[in-house]
């Protein structure tokens, strides 16, 4: 079984997944950030592959993508930085990004590299279900990569069932119709939406993403799901940090409620 499914099977506590843009704040910080996240007690790490035109992302993540690209980050450099990742990182790792850089790298070569460095799965928001099934699913599966799909409050029950059938690992439940970082906090409407999905008895667990920034919103989101994902709030911390390792460890502990 892959690391992600194992994690969900073995953990009763809310699962914390944190997104970090690769090569940010500095080109060489990627592994430092990963190690500090794990030290703080994160459950899953999502590494953002920077892209020039990230349409599903709000300003914070856009800017971090641009800074990283300006500092020379590429898919090739990223795999190079992650080469020995599994010597220190034992938590599941996802790559999040847009489909075009993957296409240019070569889909098969990309999947092969992911397997080589120990990446467990992918989140590609502009690769929807139909296109995935049409030309990507068999290659992803060949290299043991999970493809994580998103659902939103507007996704119909019928489509959620389709996505659940094709998914493995977990489903990324977007908390509201928005780009990343647009809204913060979790409203009662959103809690009702999480409950509605919970009552569908899907085979896959869900993590809630978008709008989660602190322990309070993390706990609220985790009430209707297996855990939550923090992106923009953490990227903001990366952008402002004076002592990167210490602040990352402190942030993760504060979310998880650890001392």
């Amino acid at each position, binding site marked *: 079984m892959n690391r992600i499914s194992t994690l969900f099977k073995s953990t009763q506590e809310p699962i914390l997944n944190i997104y970090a843009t690769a090569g940010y704040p500095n080109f060489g910080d990627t592994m430092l950030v990963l190690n500090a996240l794990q030290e703080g007690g994160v459950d899953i790490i999502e590494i953002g592959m920077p892209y*020039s035109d990230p349409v599903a992302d709000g300003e914070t993540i856009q800017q971090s993508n641009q800074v990283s690209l300006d500092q020379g980050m590429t898919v090739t450099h990223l795999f190079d930085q992650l080469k020995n990742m599994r010597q220190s990182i034992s938590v599941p790792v996802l790559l999040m990004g847009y489909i*075009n*850089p*993957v296409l*240019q790298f070569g889909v098969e070569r990309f999947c092969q590299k992911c397997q080589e460095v120990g990446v467990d799965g992918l989140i590609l928001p*502009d690769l929807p279900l139909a*296109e995935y099934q049409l030309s990507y699913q068999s290659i992803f599966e060949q290299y043991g990569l999970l493809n994580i799909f*998103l659902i*939103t409050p507007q996704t119909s029950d019928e489509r959620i069932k389709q996505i659940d059938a094709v998914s493995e690992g977990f489903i990324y439940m977007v908390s509201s119709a*928005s780009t990343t970082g647009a809204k913060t906090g979790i409203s009662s409407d959103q809690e009702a939406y999480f409950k509605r999905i919970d009552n569908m008895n899907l085979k896959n667990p869900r993590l809630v993403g978008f709008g989660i920034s602190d322990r309070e919103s993390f706990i609220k989101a985790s009430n209707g799901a297996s855990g939550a994902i923090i992106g923009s709030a953490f990227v903001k911390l990366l952008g402002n940090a004076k002592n990167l390792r210490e602040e990352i460890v402190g942030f993760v502990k504060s979310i998880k409620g650890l001392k």
Partner: protein
Amino acid sequence: MIDAGISFHVSEKGYYGDFGGAFIPEMLYPNVEELRLHYLEYMMEPSFQKEFHFLLKDFVGRPTPLFKAERLSAKYNTQIYLKREDLCHTGAHKVNNTIGQILMAKRLGKHKIVAETGAGQHGVATATVCALMGMECIIYMGAIDIDRQAPNVARMKMLGASVVAAQSGSKTLKDATNEAMRHWINHPVDTHYIIGSVVGPHPYPDMVAKFQSVISEEIKWQLQEKEGRDYPDYILACVGGGSNAAGAFYHYLDEPRTALIAAEAAGQGISTGHSAATTFLGKPGVLHGSKSLLMQTEDGQVIEPYSISAGLDYPGIGPLHAHLATSGRAKFFDITDDEALDAALECSMLEGIIPALETAHALAVFGKLGAKPDEISVVNLSGRGDKDLATYQEKLKLNQ
């Protein structure tokens, strides 16, 4: 010239050959899927057709004339007609699409509109139909384009639209499109996105091409009246995203006697690093919801294009055009800023028509086409040059 068996119409799955599809985040799926399921049905409804054609006639001023350009014809020793889309209300072909899409938005039950604009022509055409229908309108426009197309910004505001500057990336059309898509992601329930060209996820390229196809529908009967045959030897159009070209080509896609000629903005030249000529410089890639040709780095990052003409300053082209280019059905020419400026001046002086800078790229092809004396060409005169006067004044030194 046309291989039997190649289709230039969109497939069931939304593809033209290898290009097209719908690469959109899940947040947009319900909107795009609703459109995909219903666009043909809604367009074909007699009440839709009636309203669409009524507005094209009485509001836009269609049919637009097909004008024999005698002095240009004499200059190039061939037969040249101009399809006068510049005479459409708002000054360009863009309004054919916005009329169609605002009617579509009404049927979809949406009451707010978002759009991107480059030269401002699509923004003006969108603001215009929103005023006509009493809908709220937000236009995203690159900060650089806001500067170089100031008259159109003022027009949009006068028509009641909010104009929002896109500050990211190259601050031009690509970034305005990103921002418009983000706005739609944040407002999926009440808002329809009126894309301004034959780009975006399926079914947009096909829907926009069908709304613009009124151009070649008219050329067919107009040419029949004037020349006794309903097809030209050449149809020429400029390609930014490709909507005016798609409309001018549409009824000739399967006509082997008509050569399809597309003009792309080479900027300072295709090997200078300051260009927007996608079919020359692009590779297959995904941007703004579809797979097409795309100017990009080896790492798959989108390259910021350059053209003097805001409407052609885009790193991609619509999937239909990528298919027309790679299959050889259409021939693409790369036209530099300077060639376009010369052609704009020539058309103004010989025909009394000041064309848009975008359109001037199509006119500049005559210097390279080698059309024979008795051959007939139709140029889609996609827009008028009023919006470009500041650029013309500066570059053609009209103040001296």
